[in-house]
């Protein structure tokens, strides 16, 4: 076992353990903060896979943006900690069947797909190639996503600005 394996297992444990806390805890604040460690662990695994840019985007967008927004929402909501969050089990049989089918499908896809397993060099940086791909082959999707985000931004601003009748 090399050092990199140990680091991988460290991040994997962080991710899985904190994700477990996210779904099992009854305190919604604990869920939110555990999610921070989940995102962080996933970013660490991205780094080990050689996807440096993606890892940073993961931290920037999820930890820095979405999670903070989520915590803000939770903390500004009145008396949210007193809400009884149900984490008990209901409809055990249908849930088990549904989850079992999904698990089976995912596992079979994972096992039967012919993954390209060439011993590739891990690139030193992915930033340049990602930028090039985004502005050549995927420029339309890139622009459309930009417009989508702009629309969301304008919508949010107009809702926030709406004056009382």
């Amino acid at each position: 076992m090399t050092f990199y394996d140990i680091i991988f297992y460290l991040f994997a444990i962080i991710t899985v353990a904190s994700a477990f806390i996210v779904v099992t805890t009854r305190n919604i604040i604990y869920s939110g903060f555990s999610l921070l460690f989940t995102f962080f662990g996933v970013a660490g695994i991205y780094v080990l896979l050689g996807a440096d840019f993606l890892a940073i985007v993961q931290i920037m967008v999820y930890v820095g943006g979405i999670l903070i927004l989520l915590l803000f929402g939770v903390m500004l909501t009145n008396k949210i900690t007193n809400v009884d969050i149900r984490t008990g089990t209901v409809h055990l049989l249908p849930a088990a069947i549904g989850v079992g089918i999904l698990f089976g499908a995912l596992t079979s896809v994972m096992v039967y797909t012919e993954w390209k397993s060439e011993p590739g060099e891990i690139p030193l940086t992915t930033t340049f190639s990602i930028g090039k791909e985004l502005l050549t082959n995927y420029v339309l999707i890139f622009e459309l996503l930009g417009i989508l985000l702009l629309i969301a931004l304008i919508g949010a601003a107009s809702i926030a600005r709406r004056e009382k009748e």
Partner: protein
Amino acid sequence: MYQYFYDLTGNTIIATLIVAVFPLVNVLLVALIGVYLERKVSAWIQDRIGPNRTGPLGLFQTVADFLKMLQKEDATSTEIDSKLYNIAPVLVFTGSFAAYAAIPFSSKLIGSEADVGIFYVLAISSLVVGGILMAGWASNNKYSMLGAMRSAAQIISYEIPTAIIVLSIVMFTGTLSLDKISDMQTASFWNWNIFGGAELGLTKFLMIPFMFIGFLIIFISTLAEVNRTPFDIPEAESELVAGYFTEYCGMKWAMFMLSEYGNMFAVSAIVSILFFGGYHSPIGYLGNSIGVEWLIPFEQAFWFLAKGWFFILVQMWLRWTLPRLRVDQLMSLCWKYLIPYAFVNLIIIGIISLL
């Protein structure tokens, strides 16, 4: 530096850990000297004497404070959320110290030469926001909560103008790596980005005013990101006791202070790398002129620390000169002035770079 320790130990991880000690020592020194200087600078500005009892000129004041802090009882309120309460200071310090991984202290002392340097620094500082919110919530105190909310709102708002100015520098230099950005501004001070970069020509002179605007915007917004006056409403003493760390004492409180001073140096370093040549000397190297190769990295470290400390002193000077902004003034400054100006600046710098 890393290569040297790698040859010595033969192990990448151990070598990295040894190299990581240097920024840690730097953060500790910045906190130690910074707290002392803050007191002295404030005293000079307000025409007082400042600390003068412990050691010559009060030099050992912060050492004494630190020894006192180590012995303090960890007094906590009974109503706190003790798990989050204990994690929060660690998370805040982790976030501010992690930024040092990508900051080049000299051409030989760089934690990581990863090509995503500046982007990484911007992203990892969001851990600090998480830690601050955690501290505010876990303290179970309305002042802490208000401070944490204000701080988080302020940091995520001011991240936007910072990111836009960083983007314009990235567009201008064509790299995200802090090491390469510093390396482009070598030789002398008129090659610094604030003077339009290394390439001579018409574009260099066209660039100068917009680079100055960019520097002003990023300096103001990084000042707000580290919660310093005039943007210190998260810990406004006269309103909120001490903001999000009201309920902390002893070493946990010291970790918040440590991360504040660590952050101050980190943003000063970022500003000096982006606009003032980073670790490069403004006047050429003594090592080059007398032909002593090994002297150059030490000179670079000296210039880097000198630039960092210069901006820390400017931050202190501003803190003891300007009054604090109100919350609404703070938000309107960011969203109505800094962000539009930064956007226009970004477009103009882009157009000039294309010329």
